[in-house]
């Protein structure tokens, strides 16, 4: 579904990603893990068109997207829940969800999808007229995921969904990701919470200082010596 072939990404003169290739197949949950500054978020930003790769290709369902305008990708079924949620904080929850469904089929199905999102997050329904900036951190994350789902994505990417949330909420978010996958959406997740994301993922890639150093099934990586010492502290 998503294929990255040998991309290099730089901020100005600083190269952040070196020759990165990875693949996400239809129906999978794939995790991209690594320490702070390893280039995980940069990878997602490059896939979503916010940054440009200097070299290499990105294919989404066989179509090259590395030169496409960022605003066109969501209409193709590629959606990102950005780091730190990035809700429109002066808009209501309802309006934020509307913003997720501006295009084509997603717009036609808006009311139906919204009901489905409220089914997933009953709390959002209670708060639908509330200004997004006044929600608690967990509720904001729910709204951000809901907004991502509103576009009826084929591939939904999460950038650090558990960041800044209480442990009980982290578990809730991962349960939701499982449900999203069961509904047929492919998931690419970037996390510092290595244990949870490896447990949830079919496959995972480990990124260190912009390079891919390891890949494998979630289980295999969980029991890998290097991953255990470097990321799990055991």
């Amino acid at each position: 579904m998503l294929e990255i072939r040998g991309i290099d990404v730089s901020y100005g003169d600083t190269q952040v990603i070196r020759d990165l290739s990875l693949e996400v197949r239809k129906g999978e949950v794939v995790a991209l893990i690594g320490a702070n500054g390893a280039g995980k978020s940069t990878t997602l930003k490059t896939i979503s068109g916010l940054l440009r790769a200097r070299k290499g290709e990105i294919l989404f369902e066989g179509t090259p997207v590395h030169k496409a305008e960022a605003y066109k990708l969501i209409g193709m079924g590629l959606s990102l829940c950005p780091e730190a949620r990035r809700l429109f904080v002066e808009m209501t929850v309802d309006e934020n969800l509307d913003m997720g469904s501006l295009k084509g089929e997603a717009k036609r199905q808006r009311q139906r999808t919204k009901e489905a999102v409220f089914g997933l997050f009953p709390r959002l329904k209670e708060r639908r007229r509330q200004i997004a900036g006044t929600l608690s951190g967990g509720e904001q994350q729910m709204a951000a995921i809901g907004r991502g789902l509103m576009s009826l994505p084929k591939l939904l990417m999460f950038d650090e969904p558990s960041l800044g949330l209480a442990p009980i909420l982290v578990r809730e978010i991962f349960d939701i990701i499982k449900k999203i996958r069961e509904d047929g959406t492919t998931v690419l997740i970037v996390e510092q919470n290595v244990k949870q994301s490896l447990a949830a993922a079919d496959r995972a890639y480990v990124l260190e200082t912009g390079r891919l150093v390891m890949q494998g099934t979630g289980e295999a990586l969980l029991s890998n010596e290097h991953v255990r010492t470097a990321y799990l502290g055991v």
Partner: protein
Amino acid sequence: MTSAQIEVLLQTLISGILLGGLYALIGLGMTLIMGVMKIINLAHGELMMVAMYIAYWMFVLFHVDPYLSVFIAAPVMFFLGVMIQKFLINPVLRVESILPENQVILTVGIGMVLSNLATMFFTSDYRSTPVGYATDALYLSDYWKSSPIELSLSVPWSVSFVFAVIITIALWFFLSKTDTGKSIRATAQDPEAALLMGVNIKLMRVITFGLGSGLVGAAGCLLLPIYYLFPALGGQFTLIAFVITILGRLGSAMGAIIGGLVLGVFESLTATYIGMGWAPVGRFVMFIACLVFLPGGVASLLRKKRFGA
């Protein structure tokens, strides 16, 4: 207070609110552009001047009422705003500039060009638009015979105010109920997130500059029956719009409306109780007081209330 004094006060407040309604419309255009583009459009008043000349010549040559000209001048100004954004401001935005304020300086230049072109073509004469209803007024005593005080309501001022209110409501409806309006607000709040949601933010910027110009163009038409017209009038209104935008807090629509009304009432009070010539002084006293005591603008008060803190 004697009844005569109450009469003067109420009359002053009424004209202040009527003036404030127009100010709000002028400020809204600037605040909208400020919110989305993060630049102060210092050609704002000059754009209004251009709209006023359009309405003026429509009246003189074709006897089109200035209020009808709203429907001509506002679309023309929308188009002009779109062109300015597309062909003048966007190229400057793309360049790595020495000063980050380059776009602002550009708008100053656009303003100068517009006012000097107007001087070349139309001379610097002061003109007024001889509409038939210019001095018509409604009197309270005509409707309430035994009223203890007498108040009057100027017909053109009131009609302009009503128009301004209608346009403001239409704008509110557009911004809060349509997808395009929501996309404009989203672009103002977080352009990158808006991009991820599929918003073509370049297009939104172009539309917003057009919309801001169209709004101030409409305000120009509404001002024409009650004000005189000359090429250099723009600068003064750019300043008024700027003060309102600061009063309201940069980029906040509700803040601009309240800021406009507050400024209108304050100027009207200054004119009545201190002297006509002191109204601009009052305007800037208010501006400085706002920067010192309420740097977040009216919107910061609104926000506190909304957040219940």
